[in-house]
């Protein structure tokens, strides 16, 4: 996908002429830097499209396990649907974390981000946003479909979608922080889950509750607001901590 919307920049920058004094290197505005960071990761992801499907396939597979393990009876499935969807979403979001920063650390591009003269927090927030667009958002859109298979009525679908969208934002941010923390280690596999899951429990609790209320057709605003509060907290703190973690691993 040629990254759309990357128009030529304005601003008097000389072509790579020889005698150019050092101070004509104009620093790119933070917004452009973030947009480029997101567009790079999206371009990269669409180059390896098959990998995009994996978290989704895993999510559907996990939701498939429960009817087989428990019972095909829709009434029973509906009563556990919220928990199933959220546990599946939590586990699926773990999948794509391992290599969120590891590839960039190995080929030296993460180092260039740290030395770019831009706020590393802002760039890592952009990377996490791209990660969410590639995993969290698709999961949220898949959840209502999976919910139908668990006997959930169509009326509940918007509620499921909204709570999933808000919840997966926090999951991506916590995951990014855990991924950055384990960057300096050779292999982080199970440790990534051990770091991510305890911190994600509040999201699981409020998310599952919101979905449960939506499925029952009741108002689900209260837990949704708590979920949104977690997202706001995560958006402000997680990128900051992830930047510190990345700097630690680059030392």
């Amino acid at each position: 996908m040629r990254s759309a919307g990357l128009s030529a920049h304005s601003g008097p920058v000389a072509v790579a002429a020889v005698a150019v004094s050092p101070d004509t290197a104009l620093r790119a505005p933070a917004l452009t830097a973030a947009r480029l960071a997101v567009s790079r990761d999206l371009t990269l992801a669409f180059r390896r499209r098959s990998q995009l499907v994996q978290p989704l396939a895993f999510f559907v597979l996990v939701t498939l396990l429960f009817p087989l393990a428990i019972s095909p009876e829709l009434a029973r499935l509906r009563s556990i649907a919220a928990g199933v969807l959220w546990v599946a979403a939590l586990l699926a979001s773990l999948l794509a974390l391992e290599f969120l920063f590891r590839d960039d650390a190995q080929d030296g591009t993460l180092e260039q981000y740290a030395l770019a003269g831009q706020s590393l927090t802002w760039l890592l927030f952009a990377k996490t946003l791209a990660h969410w667009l590639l995993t969290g958002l698709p999961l949220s859109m898949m959840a209502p479909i999976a919910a139908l298979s668990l006997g959930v009525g169509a009326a509940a679908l918007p509620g499921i979608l909204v709570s999933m969208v808000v919840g997966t934002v926090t999951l991506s941010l916590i995951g990014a922080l855990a991924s950055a923390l384990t960057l300096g280690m050779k292999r982080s596999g199970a440790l990534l889950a051990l770091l991510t899951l305890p911190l994600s429990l509040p999201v699981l609790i409020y998310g599952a509750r919101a979905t449960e209320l939506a499925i029952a057709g009741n108002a689900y605003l209260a837990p949704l607001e708590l979920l949104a509060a977690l997202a706001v907290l995560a958006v402000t703190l997680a990128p900051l901590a992830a930047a510190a973690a990345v700097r630690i691993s680059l030392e």
Partner: protein
Amino acid sequence: MSWTWFHKLASPPYVYALAARLTPWFAWPAALLILGGLYAGLVLAPPDYQQGEGFRIIYVHAPTAWLSILVYVVMGVSAGIGLIWRMKVAHAVAASCAPIGASFTVAALVTGSLWGKPMWGTFWEWDPRLVSELILLFLYLGYLGLRAGFDDTQRADRASALLAVVGLVNVPIIHYSVVWWNSLHQAPSVMQLGKPKMPASMLTPLLMVLLGFTLFFVALLLVRLRAEVLQRERSASWLREALRA
């Protein structure tokens, strides 16, 4: 640093010597208080009108549960200090805290479920306090796992310090989420710890063990701190002097 004592605390040799000197001052009072408190709790305190003799488990459950969270707070704060002011000693304190805290969290879980058994009829009850304690254990295990993953002490210190700070911020959030979750599904649990006014004969042993365990933790911390400081020390001259002491 304007406050000289804080500055002094940053220098490993000073801290090593101080820790060596202070340890007995915490260890012996701790031993006395713990033995005295447990004896009083087991023998002198009257049985509880509701739980009978079973309530005496409080004298081991309360202090271990108290230490499990106190140690985590000490770990998180010292980790934060280590990160902000780049103080190796602060990282050494955090590194020393983790195993102590984890062990007391296990003790709190076991004593908690043993105490719950006569009440709830099952060893494991999804009581918000026990669930929070279990999650706290996973936070400790995450910290220990992350720290063990690095071979370079300095990087291990800084990465695990960041996790400790993040964990500390999340502990209240997780706890109240669990309490909120618990209140959804069942009436608040019947066992209200310490809500009814405890007579002095029951309360004094509790305060004795709480103080005793805290002093015990400090003594342990001082011993482990000397070990951690030694591992992080590089200057030969200081090492030679410390080892001769």
